[in-house]
């Protein structure tokens, strides 16, 4: 670096580059060999995530408590997005108990909950790999929380690998809210599209203010 650039070249003066892919993607997600509910072997990153918008949740076939509500809600979400499912949006439910949930068990679980739907894959695999994926995608940096295998069943991870957006939502929220969160990871809209959406939103707000005295919903 010459002397002059020492004082001026605080950043690269190059033209803005195209966003580069996140480095070391495989590292981030793992490329573990998993098995689908149709007993098909798949690579976690290469076959399931690469370049896609995906919804990932954790479950296991014998899970009670919130799990039945979660899958019920996810079916509703799938219905609402069925046009996109399997095309530019994919859903993955990964079992937390791979020792028990083999492909057949997952398939019958999906059948039972009317979740054998296009674009929705149930996954099992080596317990070590599943644990690694759980840790990589759902870790919350708290020892009690992170070592509890059954934790995280109430979270839906939303990732758009192409645009590098990560977000999450609880499937226990209303379908409206879950869809809204999924849309946060949608491929970016053009400025014109965003301006149009903003106009439409303002109309809705104006109506609400008229009726309720303040903005009530989104």
């Amino acid at each position, binding site marked *: 670096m010459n002397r002059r650039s020492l004082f001026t070249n605080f950043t690269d003066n190059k033209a*803005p580059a195209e966003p580069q892919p*996140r480095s070391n993607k495989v590292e981030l997600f793992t490329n573990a060999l998993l098995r689908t509910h149709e007993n098909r072997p798949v690579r976690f990153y290469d076959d399931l995530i690469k370049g896609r918008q995906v919804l990932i949740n954790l479950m296991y076939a014998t899970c009670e408590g919130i799990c039945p509500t979660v899958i019920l809600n996810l079916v509703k979400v799938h219905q609402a997005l069925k046009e996109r499912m399997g095309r530019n949006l994919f859903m993955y439910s990964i079992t937390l108990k791979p020792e028990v949930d083999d492909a057949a068990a997952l398939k019958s679980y999906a059948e039972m909950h009317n979740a054998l739907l296009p674009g929705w894959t149930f996954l099992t695999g080596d317990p070590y790999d599943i644990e690694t994926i759980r840790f990589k995608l759902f870790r919350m940096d708290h020892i009690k929380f992170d070592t509890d295998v059954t934790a995280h069943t109430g979270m839906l991870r939303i990732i758009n690998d192409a645009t590098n957006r*990560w977000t999450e939502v609880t499937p226990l929220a209303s379908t409206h809210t879950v869809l809204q969160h999924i849309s946060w990871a949608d491929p970016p809209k053009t400025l014109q599209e965003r301006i149009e959406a903003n106009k439409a939103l303002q109309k809705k707000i104006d109506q609400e203010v008229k009726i309720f005295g303040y903005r009530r919903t*989104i």
Partner: protein
Amino acid sequence: MPRKQAKEKKFSEMSRRDVLKMGAAAAGAATILGPTVLTSRKSSVFAQSGVTEPVLCAATPVPPSPATTPFLDHLPIPFPAIPQFLNPAPTMNANIAGGEAARAPHQRWAQFTPAITYQMEAKAATHQFHSQLLPSYVWGFNGRYPAPTVLNAYGLPAIVRFKNSLPATTTSFGTPEITIHLHNGHTASESDGFAQDFFSTGLFKDNHYANAYAGIDDFGGIGDPREAMHTFWFHDHRAAETANSNYLGLNGMYLVYDEKDPGHEFNTPGSLRLPNYYGITDIPLILSEKRFCPAANGRNEMFQVIGAASPSTDKWIVNGKIQPKFEVRRRKYRFRILNTGPVKTFNLSLIKPDGSQGTITVVAVDANFLEHPFDLSNRTLDIFVAMRFDVIIDFAAFPVGTKLYLKENAAQNVGVPSPDPMPTGLAIENVLMRFDVVGNTIIPDTPPIPTDLIEMPDPLVPDASFEWRFTLESGQFRINGLPFDPNRVDHAVLKGSTEEWTLRNDVLAGNWLHPVHIHFEEGRIQSRTVRPDPVNQPGLTVPVTLLPEELGRRDVYPLPGQHTVVLRQRFRDFVGRYLIHCHNMNHEDNFMMMRWDIVESLAQLRDRKREIAHRREEAGLPSLYKKEEIG
């Protein structure tokens, strides 16, 4: 050619002389005024665009942040924000055609016509966190981290135009959609940065800050001066992404002056005469935590905070620098300490050269002056995320040449030994920053700190009560059994009323501490209790003596495991949607947040409460209201 060479030489000599001159001028200013208001030349990039998007590191195992020599950098002081005319001019209704984000019309617009306007443009930039580190990719207001400080006065309503010029697509871990909350302004809902009211790149939003005291309806004019707050901060509040965007740098300070705290030290009526020259004797200390990647592509990027690859942080940042030094003169200084998190709690103490603890005088907590200041010399100042402490340190007692240290209990990664011998018992890893006493004061010292600072507002008599339970169920943070849903109302209050709220932390696993933040008005803690043995005697509660900092008005309530805090708060002057949430930004992003609405009429209140009960019933949860409340 010899001639050309000569010319070049002359040019370089000239510029060197100029540089020397500039340096001398700067040094001169420093000798006269003490520390000058400055930001490091290298601290931000003025380029409007062309900041290369980061290539993030996802290395495993995660290496520690690079080594940095302590006390190499001076403490930067965020520059005061410069008021500017806005084009298009601010309007009551959202200026959709002009590019404003959709919102409800400004409340009380005619009453508080903006007298002063600012623009804060969120954009990508780079910032050097230490002179031995390469620049890091950040998001800063007006391209700076920390953002310029807004200096305002009560009675002068302001518009701050938050403009989103962030890259529409980014390889960073941020989401380029923002909604800015002024913590803890008495702000109308449409300007309060509700978590879901975010807007995307290319749009702007005018936040209307009345700069009035709470109690406008009761007291008329600009409200009840006893409700004065002085040390605010603004930050991004986007649902599920708050930690990321704050970690990237979207926050800054906002100070509001009045007669008690006028922004100068002259003897004017009503003035408390505390150290009060911004950037000279009244210094913001904006704390945060970071972790840096190894040098690559001309940068030391921050580690990502999304997903699993987020390692624990290992560098503590003050006003954008790692372990800075601050030159002080022998007089009183005021420090407005703010913890911007996103997660870490700071436990600070002042360490004298002999290793003993020095005295810090606390005058204000969460922007509110205490009735009486208190000295803190035998415990740490515990600053949870989003809390503010205004403290005074008197350096007059120390001879010129003394070095004092601000100690943080948790060690950071330094990587090189201290340049100076440290006080006994103090490791360099535990030093947040250093104060160097460089000379006698030139600006006369302020008089002794008054023993009575303010008169508290009248005691609050509640019209209703409500309980918020902070729990962890099925591996998920919840309040009152539910995770955050911005489209669902979780509680409704009547405009103008007072309520008694109970905050209960029932998490058995982990004993997680939640710094609970309530928007809109300041609350007053009535009591704090703890369950000493929740497993065997779940019904047993023991009162906890309130700390002196809990006796004032508050907007952040630290809630350790098994604690219950009872507080009272009023809801005056505005209507709309507001939030209560855990201000550990990771928790808040994981939905430990609830929405409550202020409504205008009793009929609306009954409607809302009925709706809330119905939604809870749908979720299989009991109603939290009595039958007569919902009719």
